[in-house]
């Protein structure tokens, strides 16, 4: 999977260079390239028109792409295809990268990358992506909306799929930002020594690293959870979203003023961390987990843990 991830980073990076200073055009190119390359077909059986592989393979690609400070609608296009197949609908448009996912949120429905899509999957059916209210997030990515709340099954396996890959997106950017922060602290000198030699600075480096590690563990757990899991999957995304905020804060504090410049490029990671942690926020997810646990009690909270037995001695 490493080769696919590296290729994805390379191909997308080349596109970004061509669209500097035109974020809308950059995002259109990211969507087009993703669909053309068909990376979202990873983790879809070959019999269904996919490329085989499992969800962890796809998550690894998503992680590498976001660690490089890049946008790609991989979680949306994959969840869209997964949803079409699960609902027994014709997957042709989804295979081409023209079906995404609809995320109910209060009185409206968010459709990330909606403007580029034909339709979005919602609770076993499709919503046409016409008449969307256009909006972009802090990372300049399109997150268009439709009016109207929709009732669906909770937890929805399609939404869960998207959440896992969206968590992978956050984990990748958190890892990228934490790594850059550690490298910067180790080399940037002030008062005649690398700033990492100051324990207060080292503590920020450690915090960023630890949060990225925790988010990666949360993703790891979500990847082996059941499709309709009510706790582990939202927990994975909530933990990644929380980590995102902490990592971004530590990263900017360690980098000082140079960190906010476009020239340095740290903002390509931190803008994404801030954007992605908002759809949905950790607060929304945590309230959902709290409600599920209130209904299921302590045994649910405890059993919702990771699939510990995978790969252990039999």
């Amino acid at each position, binding site marked *: 999977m490493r080769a696919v991830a590296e290729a994805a980073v390379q191909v997308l990076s080349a596109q970004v260079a061509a669209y500097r200073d035109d974020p809308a055009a950059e995002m259109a190119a990211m969507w087009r390239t993703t669909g053309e390359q068909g990376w979202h077909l990873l983790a879809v059986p070959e019999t269904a028109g996919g490329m085989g592989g499992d969800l962890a393979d796809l998550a690894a690609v998503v992680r590498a792409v976001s660690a490089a400070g890049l946008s790609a609608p991989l979680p949306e296009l994959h969840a869209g295809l997964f949803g079409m197949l699960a609902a027994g609908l014709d997957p042709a448009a989804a295979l081409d990268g023209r079906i995404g996912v609809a995320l109910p949120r209060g009185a409206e429905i968010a459709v990330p990358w909606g403007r580029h899509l034909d339709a979005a999957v919602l609770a076993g059916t499709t919503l046409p992506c016409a008449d969307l209210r256009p909006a972009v997030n802090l990372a300049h990515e399109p997150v268009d909306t439709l009016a109207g709340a929709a009732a669906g099954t909770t937890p929805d396996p399609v939404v869960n799929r998207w959440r896992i890959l969206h968590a992978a997106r956050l984990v990748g950017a958190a890892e990228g930002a*934490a*790594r*850059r*922060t*550690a*490298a910067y*602290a*180790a080399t940037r000198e002030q008062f005649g020594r690398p700033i*990492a030699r100051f*324990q207060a600075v*080292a*503590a920020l*480096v*450690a*915090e*960023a*690293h*630890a949060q990225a*590690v*925790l*988010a990666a*563990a*949360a993703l*790891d*757990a979500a990847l082996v959870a059941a499709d309709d899991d009510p*706790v*582990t999957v*939202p*927990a*994975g995304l*909530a*933990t990644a979203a*929380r980590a995102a905020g902490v990592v971004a804060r530590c990263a900017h504090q360690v980098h000082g003023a140079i960190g906010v410049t476009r020239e340095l490029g740290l903002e390509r990671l931190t803008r994404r961390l801030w954007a992605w942690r908002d759809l949905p926020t*950790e*607060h929304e*997810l*945590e*309230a*959902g*987990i*709290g*409600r599920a*646990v*209130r209904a299921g*009690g*302590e045994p649910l*909270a*405890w059993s*919702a*843990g*990771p699939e*510990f*037995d995978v*790969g*252990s*001695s*039999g």
Partner: protein
Amino acid sequence: MSAAALRAEVRAQLDEWRAAGIFTPRSDSWLVGYDEDFSRRLGARGWIGLTWSPEYGGHGRGFVDRFVLTEELLRAGAPVAAHWIADRQIGPAIARLGTGALRRELLPAIAAGEARFCLGMSEPDAGSDLASVRTRARRVDGGWLLAGQKVWSSNAHRATHAYVLARTSDGERRHDGLSEFVLDVTAPGVTVRRIPDLRGPGHFCEIFLDDAFVPDAWVLGGIGAGWAQVTEQLAFERGGPERVLSTYPLLRRLLDTAAGPVGRVGELVARLVALRRLAWQVAVRMDAGEAPVAAAATLKLLGNRFEVDVIEAARETLPSDEDLRAALDDAVLAAPGFSLRGGTTEVLSVVVGREAMREAR
């Protein structure tokens, strides 16, 4: 038997023992839940020394299995302190580095819940800075004489044996010349004194060593190799679920009462899932033969924070029921130790920061 089957079996047994009044759940049970009979019960079930060779009273299972067992024990708040240190780190050190005689004599006794260990690491002038230990071991015919003072040795007054880190020579670097010993605490020259703490008599003790004898066969590993060996021990000491679950019995009550703001509870449960997975990853790496010291430090850093946050959530939400109040107070008084024992948060932060920079190179 799979880990899942083991989990179910441990859970059922603990439920039964709890219902029969054999133990009362409490927070921090791996340090203050001291019950020698309970340890013998676990030993009889084969639940001490799970990872050791059957040749020495163990069961030849993996660290993931031990992880599952310890998780369920901590979840239940079972009194496991009497055998915890021996099962977690000194037993494995003896299995790895001990002489045949030491293994044969002690491992089966530990596995039966009969031999109980305390740690002789810290000293009055060697806290976080462990390499500055001054306890000396002097060579004599057939063994070594230990002289010095150890402190913060939990439950030493009830232990049968102590692990002691001592200086056998003065190397050029202060990390050289350290060696590890297993000491019979009933030997002449060993005096144990309890240190009352904020809860009363408490678990802390100091150990005075006045030429206490250790036979050659009870030296752990190589003379002078103590620093490298004790560093490896850290993965065992820091990387377990007890660095996350010390206050789990309190959280369990909170979840059972279905009280509290859903968001706060949801946040704790989400973090719990991630931390448990992290601890599981450490166990998987230990099964692969690694000593994941940095990952263990990261787990402890984050886990200790969780343990305290459970208390804060309980303060916010628990009703003023007397029994619950007592459980909360018990956890409050235990909490200062969480981020000190086994490496302070500040020291761990340096370890984790260094690891982050190593990975970023």
